[in-house]
């Protein structure tokens, strides 16, 4: 009983005990988009790009965090699952600035794979770049809030410099108490740069600083004066 048999998109496949649906699917050659998942890191299940339909369940399940049960029927390429996978990617694409969108990023890879067009949503206001660190260029206008850098810093390297602050659409990556990265306790290990799937964290000195900043009109902090809430008017067209 060290293996679990289940059905994925009409095919019977096997998973090792403790293996997730995403891992088993990948071994079987199925392609399920995923962004907040990375090998060697605790799966967090936050991006929801990898959601799949499981027969008998009310809502979709994140395949990166779910282990199959014996006899389970899973659909990764059903119309319903694909609609949400695509919508998640579209929502994330809408908020990555054109200036920092990298065609070799994981986000771009999955957008191509699922043949996404231009996002139909207005972009968020974008934060300014942070080039204060000698080794790492920070462009949070490319950030998709997947928290891979947080886990890299906190759980892989146990440095705990990077945090996820604020709430809702104002939630954002910070260094210590939201200091410029170069003034933080960062030890420049580079784990976060390795972890970032979009290029929001890049090695400094290899061209990131030459990337044009987003236009001033599109810039603005996400958060209000006391840092906990979304700034009025920061979201698209919704100033109270």
């Amino acid at each position: 009983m060290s293996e679990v048999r289940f059905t994925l998109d009409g095919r019977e496949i096997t998973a090792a005990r403790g293996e997730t649906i995403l891992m088993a699917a990948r071994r079987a050659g199925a392609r399920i988009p995923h962004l907040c998942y990375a090998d060697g890191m605790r799966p967090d299940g936050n991006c929801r790009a990898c959601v799949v339909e499981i027969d008998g369940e009310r809502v979709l399940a994140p395949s990166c965090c779910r282990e199959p049960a014996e006899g389970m029927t899973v659909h990764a390429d059903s119309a319903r699952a694909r609609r949400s996978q695509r919508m998640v990617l579209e929502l994330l694409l809408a908020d990555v600035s054109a200036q920092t969108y990298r065609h070799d990023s994981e986000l771009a890879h999955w957008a191509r794979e699922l043949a996404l067009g231009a996002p139909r949503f207005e972009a968020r206001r974008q934060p300014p770049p942070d080039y204060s660190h000698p080794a790492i260029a920070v462009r949070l206008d490319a950030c998709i809030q997947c928290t891979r850098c947080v886990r890299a810093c906190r759980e892989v390297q146990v440095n705990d410099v990077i945090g996820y602050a604020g709430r809702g659409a104002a939630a954002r990556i910070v260094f210590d108490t939201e200091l410029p990265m170069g003034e933080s306790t960062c030890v420049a290990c580079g784990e976060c740069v390795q972890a970032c799937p979009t290029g929001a964290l890049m090695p400094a000195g290899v061209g990131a600083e030459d990337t044009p900043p987003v236009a001033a009109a599109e810039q603005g902090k996400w958060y209000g004066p006391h840092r906990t809430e979304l700034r009025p008017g920061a979201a698209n067209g919704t100033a109270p």
Partner: protein
Amino acid sequence: MGRRNRAAGLPVMLRPVPKGRPTDEAALTEVRAALGDAPRRRDLLIEHLHAVQESIGYLSLDHLNAVAEDMDLTPAEVYEVATFYHHFDIVGDGEAPPPPLTVRVCDSIACEMAGADELLAALRDALGAGVRVVPAPCIGRCDGAPAALVGARALDRASVDAVQALVDEGVADAALPEYADYEAYRAGGGYDTLRACVEGERSYEDVHAAVRGAGLRGLGGAGFPCARKWGFVRSEPGPRYVALNADEGEPGTFKDRHCMETEPHRVLEGLLIAAWAVEAEGVWIYLRDEYPACREILTLELAALRADPPCALPPIHLRRGAGAYICGEETSLIESLEGKRGEPRLRPPYPAQVGLFGQPTLVHNVETVYWIPEILRRGPEWYSSQGRRGRSGMRFFSVSGRVKEPGVHLAPAGVSARELIDEYAGGMAEGHDFYAFLPGGASGGILPSALGDEPLDFDVLAEHGSFIGSAAIVILSQADTAAAAALNLLRFFRHESCGKCTPCRVGTDKAAGLMARRAEEWNTGLLAELAETMADASICGLGQAAANPIQSVLRFFPQEVGR
């Protein structure tokens, strides 16, 4: 860039400059004075941030750094928690601290319908710079709309004059309502049932059978059968814990406040019976910060209970939220009790298996435990024999909006919206005709008055894409539109989304943006697609339910919106 020393080949980490923001000794002294000899456990971080803020008036970056140093946490850990909760005022370098008094004006659905936006604007003009006036999500006083909190003093039917009067008099403390205190509750036979349980006069099997026979379900919104939950938790290896969800925050809901402000000991007895039933070794009460009067009542009454206990009691911890609706979601509540950001956990595993501090945990809503002592005293039939239209049981309905007598009304399960209006709430308000209603606060969708004769209960509204949830019934009239109500609700969800998962974090933001246009210009096709993903792919009930107002408008009120 100049500090990089490539030529020398020195690793960057060998720079002689100390890393990070240095500890400010004065701030550290202030933090230590505020925390006294309280234990510096991680799970107390939110309590400690409250203590520092109450002592200093706000939280500066130096104070947050000092809290980190004093509690042996990293600055990032403290900062990400502090910025999660809306009631913490974080002041950056060079930023002005907030004025000492804050007036929170509720702008959720019932209060907005009663003119909260105008009140907010008028108060900002009238009160000037010495008082901070901010909009706040539902403060649980929808029957007194528009409602406000002046400091800790709640004000129903708030007006500029009434707020101004409190400000001028310097009144900002909580006013305690009349309630049954410990002595009064004991005099009426209170805690006899708990004592009978704890001292072996009643068996678990007997109590479990009574709760099951009554058909008591979770009244926070999910409606999970209470007795089954006990069975799940009890079958897991100990230590087991119990958490009371007193984080009522669903717009339109104020029945848990009613329970705590009238019969706090009935709530506590029910909670302690549940703790006995699952043999819990510790009990936590998670109370929302918007209810300062309840906090004072519970603090006083827990002290009275401990001073003269009816029987052996487990340790009971009263914890204070900090302005986060999401912490009413049970796994977020558990995270918050552990001193973390209130982000939901992925299920499985369920809290009954892996809950607070990784232990099996029973999480109950306030009203659920409120019914337990009476069910055990009067027998299960007393509860289960209530009901209309073939439904069974009873509960508190929070009724607000365009009715003559908004308030908490005790009614049988299966009562209809029209009956609630006519029999319980004194009819529609003068000049208002019944147009639509919210059966379950912000989360349960919006139904047209044509469905006003449907039974209100768990399960039965599912065919209309709706649910009763916490039984917060908000009545709309011809003066309102479903589209405007839905926009108010989506703004609420955007404000309260925790930010963890994409469909909710980005989805509520984009949806509120699309819906802020004139209703005739809504992109209904795109909204429908977005709503499906929010409902299908969000981690928790907040994001899933945030789609309901959109889907309700598209389904039942297509005449209001365009394209």
